[in-house]
Structure formats: C-alpha cells, structure tokens
C-alpha cells in the first residue's frame, strides 16, 4: 500500500519533470528510466498484495466528507502486476524508441501521468477516487493520442476516443450513483454493505457493462480502438492496448463481482453474448486490415471478447451456485488478460520498431524484414504464435482454460445458458482459428517474402533497448506458457475473494501439470509438450543431418517461372481474399469489382475492394446525423428579430401563469 501511495505522486513528479526537460535528450532517459523503476515498484507491490491481507488507507484529499479511500486487495494486486509489467515494458522499450520521437514535449509529460492515473483506478476504494483516476486516464491518454496531431485523421481519432471515454465515465458515474443511493454513500464499503433490489441491480449491471465495456472495447462500443491506438506513439499504443483495456476489465470485475454482490443468471448470458460477438467480429476486422497497428488494435478487441466470455461464464456459474466453475472461469479470464498484456505489448513494440525502420504502417509496403531485422522478427514471431493461441506459448494456456470452463458444467437449468455457452464455445474456437490465420498473414506479409518497397529493403534493426524489451516479453510468453500453474495459483486468492472458491492447487504435481478439475478429466502440461517438441526436433535434426548431404542455395523454383518483380508475390489483400469471400461478404457486405481490359488493350487491370463496418453504419452514423439535424434546426433560433425573442419571454410568462392557475 505505502509503496503505491508513494509511487503515484512520484509518477506525477516525473510528469512535471517531463514538462521541464522534454526538449533535452536527458529528459527521455530521465522520464522513461524513472517510469521503469516505478513500474517495477508497482509490480512488487502487486505481488505483495496477492498474498498479504487487505490494506486500507484514507487520505484527506478529494471530497472531505468522503476523503480519498485506497484499498489494496488481491484483485487490485493482480492488476497492479499487469500495470507494472506493461508499463515497465513500455518504458524500457521507449528508452530506445523515444529517440525517434519528433515531439517529445507532447509525450514525455503525459506518459507518467497516464501510468499514475491507471494506478489510482486500481487502488481506489470510493467512487470519486475511482472515477477521478478513470477520467484522468482518459484525458492523459487522449493527450498522448494527440501527440502527432499533425498527421491526417488523428484529430478525428482523438475526438472519437475522448467522446467514447467520457461516455464510459458518465455511464460508470450513473452506476455508482445508483450504488451509492440518494444519501451519497460513495465509499465502496458502504456500497458493499447496501444490497440493491433486483431491478436496481439489473440497471447497475447494464450501465456498468456499458461503461466498462466502452473503455475495454466491447462490440458495439469498440469503434475508438482502431482509431486511437494507431494514432498514438507505439509504446503508448502498447500501453493502451495491453494495459488500459485491462483496467476497464478491472472496473467491470470490481463493480459487478465485488460491489454489486450476487447477480442473476441472465447477466451471464448478456455478457457471454457480447463477449462472443466481440471476439469474432474483432478478429474478422483484424483479418481485413492492412494497417499493422489497426490490425493489432482489432485483435485487442477480439481478446477482450475472450476475456469477457470467461467473465460471463463466471457470472453464470456464480449465479447458479457452482462456485468451483466460477473460480475456473474467472481464473481463465484473468490469466488471459495477463497473457494478452504480455503478447499485445510485444506485438505493438514490434510494430513500432517496424514503423521506425520502414516509416510505414501499411503492410503492403513491407516484406522480407526477417533478413534486415532478425531480433525484431524473432520476438514478433513469438508474439504471433502466442496470440494465435498455439502451444507451447501462453496464449494457448489461457484459451485452453477458457474452453475447460465452457465444458466444466453442462447441467444447466436455465435455457439461456444452455444455448449461450455452447455457442460461445464455437465462437471462441472460430476466433482462435481466425486469429491464427490473421497472424500468419501479419507475420508473413511484414517479415517474410521479398521487400515490397525500397524502405523495406533498406530497413535497419532497432536499437538494443527496444530489442531487450521485445525479447524479454517473448521470454515471458514462453515462461507463462510452460508454467501456467504458477499463474493459476497466483490468481487463486483473487478468485476466492470474488467467487468464494478457488481452483485446485496446481504446483503440487511433480511435472507441473495443470488440471482444472482432475487429471483424469483434463490436463495439460506445457513444460512436457515443449520438452517433447524440442527434444524430438533435436533428435530428428541429429539423425537426419547424419543421413543426408548438405544444403545448396539456388534461385527460387516457383514451378519453373520465377518472377523477379516483387509484385507477383501474395499481398495481404490477396492472402485475405479467400477468408473475405467466406466471412466478410456476409458480415461486412464486402465486395470487389474487377475491371479486366480486353486482350490487346494495354490499360492495367484493376480490382477494387469494398468493406463496410455494419456497426458504424447502423449505430454511429445515424446518431451523428441525428445530432446534426437537430443542431441545424436549433440553429435557426439564432439571429431572430428582437420581437421574436420578446415573444419567447412573453410566451414563457403566459405559459407559467397558466400553469400556475391550473395548479392552484
């Protein structure tokens, strides 16, 4: 507790220092180095909080009669770990990456403040402090998104982002208002004590889902992610995608699981439905994307969907009184959140490195970078495997747990759950498979093949700070993948605190096998799988190399027609084409028009692809148009004659007098 309380002000001091030293080269080292150290502190505090008892603290800030109440329990601790990990990694990466920043004075002051705001959210124990941190988090990250305000589209990105962020804040404000009651019991303890009625609880749950969901990126409230994340500098994108969305998840868990108390089973179905839709839609968007950072942002949407599937299961199980299952589902969700922080940060780092090397975000201009940037490509590959949910890396471990949670309890009496749980299982499987395709495409187009542009051909490997950050996170992906038991046991206290149960102890097994319920039912041993695969690779290599002769380099075979022009290789768009035909024609009304000039005509042939975002078209455009329409009508009220305005006064007077006579 004391660590956090001392670290947050230190971060704000760093922010001030950033204002002063922004233009000096030393400023970068100071700010990011400082953030790195402080994030390490947060990390330690988080680990400490997982095991130690709940700690309270009350500071005489904010509203005097409430004060600033801070609380550090296992849940906060776990997310502090996420924050410390992601923030520390981003700082480490930025130590080198920040060198290429053209406007350091627009980044350095806000970066530590952003971290501090997120820390505040995590330790807040009253509505005011919570929302203070929440909105501050939005404001500072908005400033970071606007750092490159010169680039086209960033202004719009910042606009959409801050609007959605404020929307989420106001929604949560309503939820807290409902929880606090007319007397204003803003302290979380009093909210826990108060048990709202069923109707009230339902309203709170929906509002909280909207509020937290729009910050986490739940469909249909996800529209800001693909705009805002690419706009920000890459290490900030990593922070927003990897950590901030998790803070939103934390908000949801804190309100719904902790403050709201027991819930109805339908809550589970709602969350499950949203989670499933989000997972599939997100990855489909990612598949169609050609801007590498937008692709990553959309894949964040997908992973948030997976996390919410876990949360929905936990809600459903908790409502039906099956606490072991709830613990399993919640553990899976939290574990996946942690994993996503690791590999998504890693991937955004890689994207940043590529962006620096080639000066482009458009994948179609890249290619062959694996030769120019070996370290980056290796780390990025690890990230791709992890996020595609493939063993032996960590993405698979958490998705496997989620699937186990889906399978753990088929005997449901509620029809909604009977239908929703298996459908979500299918959605999860589909999302995982599509994610694999998506990241084969991402890595293959960016790093493999032949360079598609001069810049890509001349790309240079990134600096050692960034490389350290990336390789470190890659190592984390592996470790979390082969020792999932450690993470699960670490999460156990959180699960017990929120569901009243925990998963069975995992680390007792000699081989570190994880078994959610019992080894006979289902088990997975990342360590052994990894060991077997590595061993058999080595074995085969040894054997085969003894048997066979060496390797000779030669021109590519390509069925005898090797084509020197790099344009002949598969592009991102052509890679996605089969999947676009299969899925997007339905979901995004995707279509293509081919113009093929007749033989002898030497005009170039062309193909035009159209993709439409159904959510944007059906929800946001009409909304915007409606507001504009009303605004135009209202605008006619400007510059009327004075007589008209007097007419208004007169009318108001008469109306009020009439009302009075009627009332009397």
């Amino acid at each position, binding site marked *: 507790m004391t660590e956090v309380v001392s670290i947050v002000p230190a971060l704000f001091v760093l922010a001030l220092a950033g204002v002063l030293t922004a233009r000096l080269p030393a400023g970068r080292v100071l700010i990011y180095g400082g953030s790195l150290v402080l994030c390490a502190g947060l990390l330690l505090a988080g680990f400490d909080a997982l095991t130690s008892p709940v700690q309270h603290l009350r500071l005489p800030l904010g509203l005097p009669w409430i004060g600033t109440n801070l609380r550090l329990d296992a849940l906060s601790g776990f997310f502090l770990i996420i924050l410390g990990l992601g923030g520390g990694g981003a700082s480490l990466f930025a130590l080198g990456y920040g060198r290429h920043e053209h406007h350091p004075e627009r980044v350095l002051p806000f970066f530590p403040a952003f971290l501090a705001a997120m820390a505040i959210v995590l330790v807040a124990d009253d509505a005011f402090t919570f929302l203070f941190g929440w909105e501050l988090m939005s404001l500072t990250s908005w400033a970071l998104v606007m750092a490159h305000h010169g680039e086209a589209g960033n202004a719009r990105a910042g606009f959409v982002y801050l609007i959605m962020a404020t929307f989420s804040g106001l929604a949560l404000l309503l939820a807290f208002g409902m929880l606090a009651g007319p007397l204003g019991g803003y302290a979380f303890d009093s909210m826990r004590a108060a048990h709202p009625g069923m109707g009230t609880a339902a309203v709170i749950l929906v509002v909280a889902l909207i509020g937290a969901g729009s910050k986490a990126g739940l469909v249909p409230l996800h529209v800001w992610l693909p705009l805002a994340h690419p706009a920000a500098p890459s290490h900030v994108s990593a922070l927003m995608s990897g950590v901030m969305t998790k803070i939103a998840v934390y908000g949801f868990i804190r309100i719904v699981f902790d403050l709201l108390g027991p819930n109805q089973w339908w809550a589970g179905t709602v969350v499950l439905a949203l989670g499933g839709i989000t997972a599939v839609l997100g990855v489909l968007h990612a598949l169609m994307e050609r801007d590498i950072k937008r692709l990553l942002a959309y894949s964040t949407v997908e992973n948030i969907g997976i996390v919410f599937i876990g949360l929905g299961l936990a809600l459903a199980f908790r409502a039906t009184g099956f606490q072991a299952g709830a613990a399993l589902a919640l553990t899976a969700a939290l574990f996946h959140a942690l994993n996503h922080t690791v590999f998504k940060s890693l991937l955004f780092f890689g994207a940043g490195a590529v962006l620096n090397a080639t000066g482009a975000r458009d994948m179609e201009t890249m290619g062959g970078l694996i030769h120019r940037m070996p370290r980056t490509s290796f780390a990025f590959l690890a990230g791709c495997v992890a996020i595609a949910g493939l063993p032996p890396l960590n993405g698979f471990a958490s998705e496997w747990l989620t699937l186990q949670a889906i399978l753990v309890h088929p005997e449901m009496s509620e029809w909604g759950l009977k239908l929703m749980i298996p459908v979500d299982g299918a959605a999860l499987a589909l999302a995982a498979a599509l994610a694999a395709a998506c990241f084969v495409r991402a890595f293959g187009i960016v790093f493999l093949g032949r360079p598609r542009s001069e810049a890509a051909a001349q790309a240079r490997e990134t600096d050692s700070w960034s490389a350290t950050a990336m390789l470190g996170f890659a190592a984390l992906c592996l470790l979390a993948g082969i020792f999932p038991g450690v993470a699960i046991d670490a999460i156990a206290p959180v699960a017990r605190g929120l569901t009243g149960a925990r998963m069975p102890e995992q680390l007792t097994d000699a081989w570190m096998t994880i078994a959610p319920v019992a080894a006979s039912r289902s088990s997975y041993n990342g360590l052994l799988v990894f060991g077997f695969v590595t061993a058999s690779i080595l074995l085969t290599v040894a054997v085969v190399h003894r048997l066979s002769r060496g390797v000779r380099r030669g021109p590519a075979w390509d069925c005898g027609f090797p084509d020197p022009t790099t344009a002949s290789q598969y592009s991102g768009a052509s890679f996605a084409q089969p999947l676009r035909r299969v899925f997007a024609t339905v979901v995004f009304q995707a279509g293509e028009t081919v113009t093929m000039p007749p033989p002898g005509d030497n005009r170039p042939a062309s193909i035009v692809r159209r993709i439409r975002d159904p959510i944007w078209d059906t929800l946001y455009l009409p909304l915007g148009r409606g507001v504009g329409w009303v605004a135009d009508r209202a605008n006619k009220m400007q*510059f*009327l*004659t*004075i*007589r008209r305005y007097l007419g208004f006064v007169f009318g108001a007077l*008469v109306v009020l*007098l009439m009302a009075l*006579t009627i009332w009397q």
Partner: protein
Amino acid sequence: MGLVAPHGLSFDVAHMLAGGLVLVSFMMLYQDRLTALLHVLALHAFVLALSVAWQAYIQDAPHLYIAAGIALVFKAMLVPYALRRMVFQMGLHREIETVGGVGITMLAGIALVALSLEVMLPVTAHTDPVAREDIALALSVVLIGLLMMVTRRNAISQVVGFMSLENGINLAATGARGMPLVVEISVAFSVLIAFIVIGVFLFRIRERFDTIDVSALDRSRGGQR
C-alpha cells in the same frame, strides 16, 4: 387614516381609475398610427398619474404625489412629445404598421386580462381588496404592454409598449400600501434612465441605419457565427 373599508368611495374610484388604465391599454392596441399612438400613450400616463394621486390621497401618503407628478410631467408630456418629434424627423408619421389583425390582438388582450384576474383570484382577501384588484389590473396592463412590444415592428411603438408596461408596474407599486419611497423613485429613475439610453441608442442607430425599424438591425447574416 388606516385601512379604508371596502366598497367605499375610495375603493370604487381607485378601481375605476385602474380599470381606465386597462381600457387605455386596449386603445393602444387598437391604434396603428404612430402619432395617434403617442397621444394614447400620453393619455395612458395621465390616467396613471390620476390613479397615483388618488392612491396618495386615500393612503394619505404625500410622497406618492411626487410620483404622480413625475408620471404626469415625464410620461404624459415630455416623452410623448420627444417621440413625436422623432417620428416627424424621420418622416414616420404616415406609417401604418401592425402585425396580425387588430382584432386578434384585441382578443389576445382580453384573454390576458382574464388570465391575470384568474391568477389573482386565489389570493386570500386579507390583503385589502383595493390592492388586490389594483394588482390584478396592473398585471393585465403589464401583460398588454408586453403584448404590444411583441406585436409591433416599429422601434418607437416598442418603446411605447415598454412604457405602458412600466406604467402598469407603477400602478402596482402605488397600489401596494406603504411601499417605501425608495421604490417609486427607483422606478421613475429607472424609467428615466431607460428612456435616455433608448434615446441615445435611437440616435446612434439612426446615424448608422436609415430606418430605426429594429428588425432592420438584426438582419439575417450569411454564414454561421
């Protein structure tokens, strides 16, 4: 003397005068020539002066005579005269302008009177009836004055409407027994200032626009501001 008994002579006279004021207001609504309108304004102020004087008499409050005097001199003579000159200077004396038919305006006026009476009805009677009736009538004068400002286009007739509104307030103020002098003075004072400022403005306005029609001022612009 203290409270007068209701239904005494004093009551009837006060009531008659107040009613007369309302009547004159209606005449204003009816008038659509500026010059004639100014005459009616003078009459309006004159009736007001009478009723104020009567109030001074029955309330035995000498300071009200001053208020009556102010009303007589300023509102019944100076102001109409000044406005009249202005009208002739600008050659508006031939102008005929109304918005909406006179008949409709009159109907609206009647409705307003009904409304004000209706509003005042539930007021408990232990405020003495003179005041109560006067307030009801004053309210209707105020409303009609406002109605006038709303229905007339011409700046001068708007000024007239505003002044009749002030007269209504005067009536109310004097009807309120024992209301301290402060208020009457301030009322007259504010009216005076108001008039001066209006005059200043009209002067400036005329210097910039060839008509003082207010609607010429707020012409609709191109482009949003």
